[in-house]
């Protein structure tokens, strides 16, 4: 009889009998071996502006070749991509795209980076890792958009392959985290600290969901944690929720709420707070923390003006942290 296996990739530690697949739907015990069911089988492939990730301090205006497979180790009530994240790999339409072909396609599309995104790249770890390795050798950056629910060992091994990450920080207390996403908070906080320590450029997204995580106290707590553990230069994107998946009963986040979050984050000392999913909002721009002039003006994903020269504000010479070239 084939042995049981225990997956040690994410904090769920799924224990799987022969023929069982993990909570993520993408990893399965086949005859006593844990197999990735999604290696080289993305169900979403697209060249996106890197601002869509969102990563605002990484090669602004550049294209990011974005891939995802089916499955996710989180189950957020508001998932914007639930059609793929909450599906088995055999339920989605996939293309056969092994790592070398992803890199070739990214280069053909004149993208400067590959983004592992849309669903949850942690669950296609092996595919991401091998693709990222080839991408680096071809001069491309690797960026990851993730909920950050991963064990420390695989994360530390992955960090050298990843240049930048946008990690969702979905709430600031464990009860809300579990109820909203089925994930615990602490492993996500650990991921953020470990990425930072291992030289991954980190930006954070906080999707503000009415009645779940939209109190001033929530914003203050989040901003303080980020400042204390990752530093004031860490960009935080407060993003507008839109009714989706299992939260169709809630309204979209009111613009005033996003404005409050933005104001509180700045008042708490964060240098780069943003408002997302509201095109034209002044919170789309990057402001120099010293002279407060807009160094990058954006409208949604579009760059209207870039006043960063050699990583510095062109008006006062202050260094703006990020990956600019």
């Amino acid at each position, binding site marked *: 009889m084939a042995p049981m296996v225990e997956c040690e990739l994410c904090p769920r530690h799924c224990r799987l009998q022969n023929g069982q697949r993990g909570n993520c739907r993408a990893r399965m015990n086949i005859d006593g071996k844990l197999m990735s069911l999604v290696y*080289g089988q993305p169900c979403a492939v697209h060249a996106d502006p890197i601002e869509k990730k969102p990563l605002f301090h990484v090669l602004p205006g550049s294209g990011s070749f974005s891939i995802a497979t089916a499955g996710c180790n989180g189950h957020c009530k508001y998932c914007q991509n639930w059609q793929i994240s909450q599906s088995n790999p055999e339920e989605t*339409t996939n293309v*056969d795209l092994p790592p070398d072909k992803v890199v070739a396609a990214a280069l053909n599309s004149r993208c400067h980076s590959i983004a592992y995104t849309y669903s949850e790249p942690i669950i296609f*770890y092996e595919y991401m*890792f091998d693709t990222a390795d080839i991408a680096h050798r071809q001069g491309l950056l690797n960026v990851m958009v993730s909920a950050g629910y991963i064990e420390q060992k695989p994360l530390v091994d992955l960090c050298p392959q990843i240049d930048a990450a946008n990690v969702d920080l979905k709430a600031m207390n464990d009860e809300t985290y579990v109820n909203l996403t089925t994930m615990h908070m602490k492993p996500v906080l650990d991921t953020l600290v470990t990425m930072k320590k291992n030289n991954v450029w980190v930006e954070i997204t906080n999707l503000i969901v009415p009645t779940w995580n939209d109190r001033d106290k929530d914003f203050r707590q989040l901003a303080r944690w980020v400042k204390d553990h990752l530093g004031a230069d860490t960009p935080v994107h407060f993003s507008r929720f839109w009714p989706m998946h299992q939260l169709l009963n809630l309204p979209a986040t009111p613009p005033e709420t996003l404005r409050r979050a933005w104001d509180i984050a700045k008042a708490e000392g964060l240098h780069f707070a943003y408002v997302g999913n509201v095109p034209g909002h002044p919170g789309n721009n990057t402001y120099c923390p010293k002279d407060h002039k807009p160094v990058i003006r954006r409208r949604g994903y579009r760059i209207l003006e870039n006043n960063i020269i050699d990583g510095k504000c062109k008006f006062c010479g202050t260094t703006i942290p990020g990956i600019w070239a």
Partner: protein
Amino acid sequence: MTRQNFLKTLGSFLLGILGMSLRGLSGRGNDAAKTPLKEARYYSKADHLAG
């Protein structure tokens, strides 16, 4: 419908058919020859575990 719009519609239709044919010929889709499954990293045999 103007002549120009008619030609545009016809063009889109023909391109659509061509696209579907190419997709079939390129062997894409779930039934096509796939990259083989890959053994995952980070797991242990767990015979000692109950259940």
